[in-house]
């Protein structure tokens, strides 16, 4: 069901993008860093929190019909979890991941001289190549991501066509890791640069 939903978003985006060739299409690049508070659980094991961070770069296409497409990659590192009273915990890990998103951008809100505020919601999937910290054990896992975002577009020196600005997101990722699950809410701050527009 969930896969069908995501597929529908991607396909409708591709079709809409093709149909809107005569409208303004925008490409952006960004960097971001996040603080993460993963929570891991597994059958017959306690639910325990970790702390972590990631550093990502991304490229995004904003279509003229409010659909967004994004690809991002980067590094994440999560500490070992807190320890339960029976001495059980989850290992920390680090990984390189690539993620693909599709999403919807809401109507922008002007914020005076600052520019405008864009809100959007992205859903996507990620694949991560990882290792458990302090070991030589390599593994890989998939995950789903839901990411509400706010982007402040600040007019640049070149006028409104040259925009950059900070963005904030509250990503929530569900990782499927070797029989265990990790729900990873976080807070991301990033900086986005407009690469260009195509007419």
């Amino acid at each position, binding site marked *: 069901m969930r896969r069908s939903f995501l597929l529908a978003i991607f396909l409708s985006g591709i079709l809409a993008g093709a149909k809107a060739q005569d409208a303004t299409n925008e490409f952006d690049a960004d960097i971001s*860093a*996040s*603080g*993460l*508070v993963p929570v*891991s659980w*597994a*059958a*017959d*094991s306690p639910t325990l929190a*970790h*702390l*972590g*961070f990631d550093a990502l770069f991304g490229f995004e296409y904003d279509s003229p019909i409010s659909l967004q497409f994004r690809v991002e990659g980067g590094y994440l590192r999560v*500490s*070992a979890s*807190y*320890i339960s*009273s*029976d*001495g*059980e*915990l*989850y*290992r920390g890990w*680090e*990984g*390189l991941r690539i993620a693909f998103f599709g999403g919807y951008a809401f109507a922008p809100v002007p914020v005076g001289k*600052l520019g405008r505020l864009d809100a959007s919601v992205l859903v996507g999937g990620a*694949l991560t*190549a*990882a*290792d*458990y*910290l*302090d*070991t*030589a*054990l*390599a*593994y*890989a*896992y*998939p995950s789903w991501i839901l990411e509400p975002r706010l982007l*402040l577009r*600040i007019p640049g020196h070149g006028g409104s066509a040259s925009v950059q*600005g*900070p963005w904030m997101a509250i990503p929530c990722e569900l990782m*499927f*890791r*070797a*029989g*265990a699950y990790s729900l990873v809410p976080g*807070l991301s*701050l*990033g*900086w986005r640069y407009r690469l260009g527009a195509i007419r």
Partner: protein
Amino acid sequence: MSLNRWCRVLYLGFIAGALALVFASCAQKVEITAPRYALVYGVSTYQSMYLESDQYYPYTSTPAPSKLINLSYSDDDANSIAALMQGEGCTVYSRIKGDVISNDPAQDSTPNKPTKAQMLADISRLASISSDATVILYFSGHGTTNGGTPYIVPYEGVTDAVNYSIDLSACVSPSDLNGMLSQLPTKNLIVIFDTCYSGGFVSPGSAIDASPQDYSSMPSFSAFSTAVANFGSLLSANASASGQKAPIVISAAGSEESSYDGTTAMQHGVFTYFLLQAASKGDSNGDGVVTTTEAFAYTQKAIISWGSSLTAADYANFAPFLPHISGGTRDLVLFTD
């Protein structure tokens, strides 16, 4: 302050905050309230073999070939581990066969020898422990392989003093071990083997162990590049991972290499010498406990460092070897302060 600058300050502040959170997590103090048990076995002197004047002979007085000899420090390893775990409040059952002048079975009165049957009996004694308890099983002694299957060799595993043959039915294989441990009602199981070829007991689960089973054949390795190079197969292995709770196993050596008695200065096996150090020096995140992963990481790094300091002459007695640890997301506390 311009908006741009304000946002940059906010951005840097956020990163600093995230890092502070990570560092703060390192300072958590932990109290383990569940009971812990340690089953500790060490075999320096095997049945049918005896030690005399620092020379190794079978008790038939046939000169010992280099195939299998008694060990100098396995009993010291087990004694030190037992004392350490007892000091940490564990209930300890230790079965140790130390250096004796005569190991002629007719003259040997050591009670509760570290045999396979004794191990099974000890585990059976723990059949009614609580489900949140932790059981630590430690063995130091010989290990062997047969047809690719690894075995630890308990006291009675050496049966023929002349030919040094090993009775595999008296030894413990991975399936024997799993059968023994399945009697326990807890999933919190730690197995530590300081034996040759013990890496064969270590299952990486759905992961790939990037460290080689024969360290001398591949002295450098990277988990990260292994993960990237085997991405597809690792994803499929991850998808089929059951999440079943397997024991966390630490081995002294890979499945294709030996572990060693240490030097006279160490007075322990090399692996156990550094594992004992890990109890006091291995707490890498300062939370007051040493997990199996922390103990493994400390011991592995220490052995690599020690190995790199060996001279050519030392290599007459030692070959490079590397500890291994089993895979999976779970970890357990091994040592507490």
